[in-house]
């Protein structure tokens, strides 16, 4: 059975504000954490992810892995695995692409964009981040920590 979740809501008013919030949020993370993003196109997943990587100490190149499904950032502070499941059709494909070989690694923080695609088989212990567009530049982040 899942442990009771801890839930927090944050609001940001601009792209810079989102980046700064992501940097601060990164300070609460430790190796083995899995962060799953839920939100439509344009919600700010890319902006948040970049801020998160900077907060985790990675200064290098962060881009969208939509086509190659996964990026790894290793020459900074903490190791980061960046997944993008945009092209995944269903959760049954995850085994084939090696998702489970990577996601449980204890020496990395994992970021999963488009986690909606695999709702039914996300790791039990994880942090969900739901991003809601509340205005042109304003966003609401609902962060739920499981386990």
């Amino acid at each position: 059975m899942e442990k009771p979740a801890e839930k927090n809501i944050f609001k940001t008013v601009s792209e810079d504000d989102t980046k700064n919030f992501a940097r601060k949020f990164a300070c609460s993370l430790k190796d083995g954490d899995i962060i799953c993003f839920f939100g439509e196109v344009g919600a700010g997943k890319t902006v948040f992810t970049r801020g998160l990587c900077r907060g985790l100490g990675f200064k290098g190149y962060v881009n969208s892995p939509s086509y190659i499904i996964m990026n790894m950032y290793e020459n900074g502070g903490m190791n980061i695995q960046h997944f993008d499941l945009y092209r995944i059709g269903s959760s049954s494909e995850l085994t084939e692409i090696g998702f489970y070989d990577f996601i449980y690694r204890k020496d990395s923080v994992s970021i999963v964009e488009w986690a909606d695609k695999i709702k039914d088989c996300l790791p039990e212990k994880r942090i969900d981040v739901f991003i809601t567009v509340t205005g042109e530049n304003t966003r609401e982040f609902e962060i739920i920590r499981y386990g």
Partner: protein
Amino acid sequence: MIVLGIESSCDDTSVSVLKDGNILSVATNTQTVHSGYGGVIPEVASRAHLKNISAVLKNALDKAAVGLNDIDAVGATYGPGLVGPLLVGLNFAKGLAFSLSIPLVPVNHIESHILANFIEHPDIEYPFLALVVSGGHTELVYSPSFGKYELIGRTRDDAAGECIDKVSKMLGRGFPGGKIMDSLASEGDSGFTVFPRGMKNSPDFSFSGLKTAVKYYIEKNDKAFIDQNISDIAASFIDSVTDSLTEKLFSAAELKKPATVLLAGGVSANTSLRKKASAYAAKKSIRLCYPSVQYCTDNAAMTAMSAYMMIKKYGTDRFRFDPELDAVPFLRIEDKKI
């Protein structure tokens, strides 16, 4: 010299036979596209590569009227790309090279897109500036001489082709969106509306903001309006993509003064991009080259060509069979092995 090229970095399994720099055959098995959700299924892709590759090889050899024992060397893509598909192609190539006792040339997928230009334009002069644009790549690269690359700019978020594919899906026009958006755009008025141009005054590209802007535009207007003006909207969108691409290409050309400018990758088949680049090249008296459409998208002819050029430059001894050779999914153009 007969070189076999094998390319399987993403969704297509492709094999090509090249003789002394001339392409004898290309056989490609394109994965079934599942337009229902807007993507190619990686699981299917990985398994399909494995299922297809022997038949694709046979097809390429038959078309070229060449037998396995006639092959002098194999070239295979070892990165960047999806790890499963890469491993299928590379290990197949290793098996062939080992059993035939011939050299195996590891080919960088991004470099091979650039070198695809040499298939039809073998006399391209260095130094050149190359814009590599596809679903997975947006890179502006300067090459002073063969095999040397300096990265000038790249995308900070989405690749240009990825942005076009995603917008095509948002507009309800299917995946992949390259051809669809191109033909809609060529019938439309690019001045219909103005979408933003990302990362002005920087060598780097950005397409995430543009994607979001189109999304808001679709939400703000009703569906009938969008459908009625679809060609004009597509033209305005493509105009923004190609403006961003060419602005950086032209600024880099002013700075680097290359002898040749090259376009490469699937998006280099785009009509608007070719038109803008051609106009600039004519004005500045710079030579512009781009591959014909069949060599723009992923194909093994470019892999065979790259392997052939590397053998010509470095000799076969450098490419003796290496059982340790492994796929490198996050390989960059600057990370050259040779």
